[in-house]
């Protein structure tokens, strides 16, 4: 918080030269609150976890000799008499994107000092996240009822079940954890815990939430659409 602004310590020079001076200068390398840097490092490690799951899924799908279940049909629903392919997953995708939007707004309002709107937007994000988890629970129950297990399923290659439960389950856990995290931060913002410290925490929880949305983009593309 000591704003030093002489030439060797300022974080103003762009590009490669700026990066070199960040690393060699007599200062901390990353120009951000430590919590934000720690969140970024956590998200980097989480990227590896999800990538390994998706790579495992790719591997078993490539090597399966039975035909892979047609996800378009497996996740189809009949709503008001019309048969819609993959519709629940599409709705879940839109909900998560909407929640990312409200989260981005929350960060914006937090930095401009509007506490009330920030709390409302974070809570709204948490509610959308919770509804996402609810739909996932519905989807899981539906598939389990239809006989999908990690070791077998009536639609095709047995590996489908293990990949599905593992990947969507781990993502669902992240969303659930995110909802709790959001609610905790919302309560603390409302209580005024950050009035003196500044609102970087909202940006940090936002990074986590956007990451969960980011992972869903990949799951949606590779698991559901491919």
């Amino acid at each position, binding site marked *: 918080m000591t704003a030093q602004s002489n030439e060797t310590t300022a974080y103003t020079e762009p590009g490669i030269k700026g990066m070199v001076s960040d690393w060699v200068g007599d200062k901390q390398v990353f120009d951000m609150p430590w919590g934000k*840097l720690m969140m970024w490092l956590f998200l980097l490690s989480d990227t590896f976890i999800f990538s390994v799951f998706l790579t495992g899924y790719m*591997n078993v799908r490539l090597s399966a*000799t039975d035909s892979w279940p047609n996800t378009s049909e497996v996740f189809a629903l009949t709503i008001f008499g019309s048969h819609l392919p993959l519709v629940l997953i599409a709705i879940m995708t839109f909900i998560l*994107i909407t929640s990312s*939007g409200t989260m*981005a*707004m929350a960060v914006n309002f937090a930095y*401009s000092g509007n506490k009330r709107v920030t709390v409302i937007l974070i809570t709204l994000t948490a509610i959308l996240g919770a509804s996402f988890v609810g739909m996932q629970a519905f989807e899981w129950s539906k598939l389990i009822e239809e006989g999908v297990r990690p070791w077998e399923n009536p639609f095709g290659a047995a590996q489908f079940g293990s990949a599905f439960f593992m990947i969507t389950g781990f993502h669902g856990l992240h969303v659930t954890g995110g909802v709790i995290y959001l609610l905790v931060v919302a309560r603390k913002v409302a209580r005024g815990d950050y009035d003196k410290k500044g609102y970087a925490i909202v940006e940090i929880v936002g990074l986590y939430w956007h990451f969960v949305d980011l992972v869903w983009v990949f799951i*949606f593309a590779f698991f559901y659409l491919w």
Partner: protein
Amino acid sequence: MSEEAGQQHPIGIYLKIWLLLFVLSAFSYMVDFFQLQGYLRWTLILVFMFLKAGLILAIFMHVAWERLSLQYVLFVPPIALVVLVTLMAIEGDYTFLTRLDFFDR
């Protein structure tokens, strides 16, 4: 370093990106809805996926405005993942061919 100098940008850009993400998601869903198949399907899925991921990372997560020091920390290590995916794709293909050879079918 100051805590208050966090990422602050005009609200309009978030709204525009939000809208764009909605449109891109709708396009991804359309790929399945109209049952496009083969290389066209895979290409479109990947294009929409990378556009969405890029927008979320660059704008919502503010990576576009972060310093190069952080950008490199985020984007260099995942190169290892590209190697892993390549190796596992080769391996999966090999397992598939081996199974065709040895399974009683």
